[in-house]
């Protein structure tokens, strides 16, 4: 079936990004802004058929497109999505709209470049999720670094350059090792860069371990897993709000996606053999990083550490090799996309008014911004995994799967429900409640219509997914079943 949907999902934002850049005029940013909004909404609309036309009965690739690209190396422009990739593409296109809305009155410098960077990145991220050719994947994966580097470095906070360079080099190190493993697999498959051929190729145990570790370096940095997580708090704190949103909601998911698309199916025996190790460092992330989050005085840093802790749940779920675990991990990824975006946007709302991210500079915000406070509490509850919010389902499924494997793993994992509630709610208490702390807080104005738009959209998503997760699970399930069946088979000969 020749479909253009995925190509549109990739190229519409990129083309609009270039157009926005061309319209660039720093004195009158309005045309750039409206074009960007149109581009992001159109980018979301062209993704809608992915959802409506999705075939729930198969775990295979859909909406595939295949064209030769670099014939000498047998590299193809091969796109397609399964149940794992499709929701992430929608999530990304949705977030891009929010980011464009969120920037409106906030970013005043080099507006067209800012918006163009986000639109181009949105297209590249869609490409990353849709690519079925390893080199195509790599091109999107790496090209994404360029706009992100600029977003953090140009529009970030005081220590932005350090954060941007750290982000770039960490990610590059991981991804280049992954590239080396791709080339190795290319020769093992007798000259194919098709990811699905990589899945099938038999590999010896040592080769599997090396390939697994090379890819692990790349995806672990992206997720990020402890101990290669240190770029994330720096990058988040220094990134502008939009950058934080995309970073937390989307780019971290590429790491988790990479595990499911590459590491597990290509090196199943190594994945099984090393699962104890991965589970251990996932638990370190869940518990230790949860504790680190507790002592943060900077709101963005706190949410950044909370992200690492939540992503620890994702990797934990994936390496339990059970349907509940993988499903829980995927749901957690999508839900975390909504929740972390919402949390960062909430911090952004406060930051735009007071220009501080320090918890100590706030107190009693609920008195001056009651509407905002209601949303903030909702998202905080979701972040702590309250039932009936999307945050609950993923964590619950992962803990459930963990109990079946090992009680102690489950126990440690479940502590996140305590720590998560502790650091999130304590922050909420200090920021929102109590007496009005200072003149800045007293002068606060409640959210305006524009801010209300993205807060409402995210609240609907968070509650909707928490109350009725079936649309997500029925998309994910066939693919996960197929994946687990594949991973259960040894590739050793």
């Amino acid at each position, binding site marked *: 079936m020749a479909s253009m949907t995925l190509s549109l999902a990739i190229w519409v934002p990129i083309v609009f990004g270039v157009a926005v*850049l061309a319209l*660039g005029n720093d004195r009158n940013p309005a045309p750039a802004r409206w074009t960007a909004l149109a581009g992001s909404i159109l980018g979301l609309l062209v993704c809608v058929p992915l959802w409506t036309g999705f075939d729930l009965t198969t775990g295979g690739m859909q909406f595939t497109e295949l064209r030769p*690209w*670099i*014939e*000498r*190396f047998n590299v193809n422009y091969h796109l397609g999505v399964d149940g794992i990739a499709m929701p992430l593409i929608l999530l990304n296109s949705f977030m891009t709209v929010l980011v464009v809305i969120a920037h409106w009155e906030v970013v005043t410098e*080099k507006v067209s*470049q800012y918006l163009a960077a986000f639109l181009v990145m949105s297209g590249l991220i869609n490409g990353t999720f849709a690519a079925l050719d390893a*080199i195509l994947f*790599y*091109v999107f994966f*790496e*090209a994404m*670094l*360029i706009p992100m*580097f*600029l977003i953090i*470095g*140009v529009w970030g906070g005081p220590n*932005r*350059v350090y954060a*941007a*360079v750290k982000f*770039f*080099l960490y990610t*590059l*190190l991981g991804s*280049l*090792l992954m*590239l*080396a493993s791709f*080339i*190795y697999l*290319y*020769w093992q498959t007798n000259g194919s860069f098709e990811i699905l051929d990589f899945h099938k190729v038999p590999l010896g145990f040592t080769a599997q371990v090396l390939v697994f570790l090379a890819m692990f370096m790349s995806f672990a940095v992206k997720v990020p897993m402890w101990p290669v997580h240190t770029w994330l708090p720096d990058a988040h704190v220094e990134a502008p709000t939009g950058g934080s949103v995309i970073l937390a909601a989307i780019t971290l998911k590429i790491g988790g996606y990479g595990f499911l698309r590459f590491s597990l199916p290509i090196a199943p025996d190594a994945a099984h053999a090393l699962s104890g190790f991965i589970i251990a460092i996932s638990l370190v992330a869940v518990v230790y990083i949860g504790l680190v989050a507790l002592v943060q005085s900077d709101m963005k840093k706190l949410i950044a550490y909370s992200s690492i802790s939540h992503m620890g749940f994702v990797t934990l779920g994936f390496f339990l090799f059970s349907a509940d675990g993988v499903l829980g991990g995927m749901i957690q990824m999508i839900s975390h996309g909504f929740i972390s975006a919402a949390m960062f946007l909430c911090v952004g709302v406060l930051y735009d008014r007071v220009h501080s991210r320090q918890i100590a500079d706030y107190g009693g915000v609920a008195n001056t911004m009651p509407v905002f406070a209601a949303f903030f509490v909702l998202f905080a509850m979701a972040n702590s995994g309250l039932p009936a919010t999307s945050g609950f389902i993923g964590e619950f499924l992962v803990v459930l799967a963990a109990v079946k494997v090992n009680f102690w793993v489950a126990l440690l994992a479940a502590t996140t429900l305590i720590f998560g509630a502790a650091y999130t709610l304590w922050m909420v208490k200090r920021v929102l409640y109590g007496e009005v702390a200072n003149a800045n807080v007293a002068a606060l104005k409640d959210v305006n219509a524009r801010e209300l738009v993205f807060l409402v959209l995210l609240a609907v998503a968070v509650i909707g997914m928490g109350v009725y997760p079936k649309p997500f699970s029925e998309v994910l399930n066939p693919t996960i079943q197929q994946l687990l069946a594949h991973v259960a088979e040894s590739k050793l000969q």
Partner: protein
Amino acid sequence: MNTATFSLATLAPAVPEIVLLAAACAILVADLFVADRDKALTHWLAVGTLAGTAALCAATLGNPTGVTFQGMFVADHFSQVLKVAILGSVAATLVYSRPWLESKGLLRGEFISLSLFATLGMMVMVSANHFLTLYLGLELLALSLYALVALQRDSVAATEAAMKYFVLGALASGMLLYGLSMLYGATGSLELTRVAQSIAYSQANPTLAAMGLVFVVAGLAFKLGAVPFHMWVPDVYQGAYTPAALFIGAAPKIAAFAFVIRLLAQGLDGLSADWGLMLAILSAASLLVGNVVAIAQTNFKRMLAYSTISHMGFLLLGILAGTDNGYSSAMFYVITYALMTLAAFGMLLLLSRAGFDCENLEDFKGLNQRSKWWAFVMLVVMFSLAGIPPAVGFLGKLAVLQAALEAGWTALVVFAVLMSVIGAFYYLRVVKLMYMDEPVREISVEPRGDSRVLLSANALAVLALGIVPGPLMDLCARAVAASL
């Protein structure tokens, strides 16, 4: 031998060289009658000559191999592709250099005719099928370049650079010649095809051949600027005035690549086990030194020099694979590398004006605030040099890495990959300076239309080749398959 059957028609394969030589001589004479303020005329005549010669080379692309001068000179698919690339690079060099040279009063016949003779030398190197032709081409190139660097007489730095370049270059030529003489002793022939036959049939004295090979590789490493024979590169890049550095940085790399391929892959293919290991050591050392030392540089030209060294390390990765796949990958690499170098130096020349040379990294500070377009151009070039997709630098690296991995150099590939992370840092720093820092001085971009248009096209080509690399890759693959 067939000396008796000489006729003008047998010279057909060398027509582009003959035309270039005749035109260069004509321009040399004609320049005497051009007034100093009209030197642009000479300039355009030279650019036209280069374009015409390139067209002649391109016209013979489809033809089968032609050999002339009793087997000393060969025009095959491989040579014609590289000649077009060389001629294009030199033409771009001249166009980029003109505003700078005019502002310094250096746009004189000397610069232009030396450029043309250097180009002729490169073309002879590329087409050589005989030790003597190779050497002849090499020396014509080298001597023209020494003079080219020394042309700025009143600059102490340029004179020093020319001196260093000359002394070290002469040393390298001497080593090369010594090695070639040993190979002659071992194999009894100076012609590449016969040398190859002699080694293939084990008629050559292996000890003597291996000794000769060591000297030859050392000489080649000098010319390429591979560690530990790289000392001249940073000094010459920094000392030479920017147009001369640009000249040295782009086209001669292509010629040096052809030189290595002709000598090692064609002539000494039978010794590939020996030279493969030597090149591996050179490659690893170049990657290490080039990337690490580049970080410490504050002078942009010096940084580019170390960057060149590390890129030569990558180029060697493709060659040492010793397969057609490797050679064609290296060929793709060197052509795209020349394209990127042209753009990088082109930016330096663009930002330089009368009385001020843009040389230091600091000079790029805040470029994005002055000109979004030129900052973007530089961004593309830097990310391409760093090997980040979608720019073409990535595909060049991919090509050589896969070739080296196919040949079993796994550890070296992993090492190269780690080194390119270090390398990414200093390219990234340039981007950081342009986009994230405030300008320290006025930056104005005001050179002529022709160099601006060409530079923009050059940067877009870097991007476009990264997205549509197929034709060039196929061209390289066909050239190697048809000729080696």
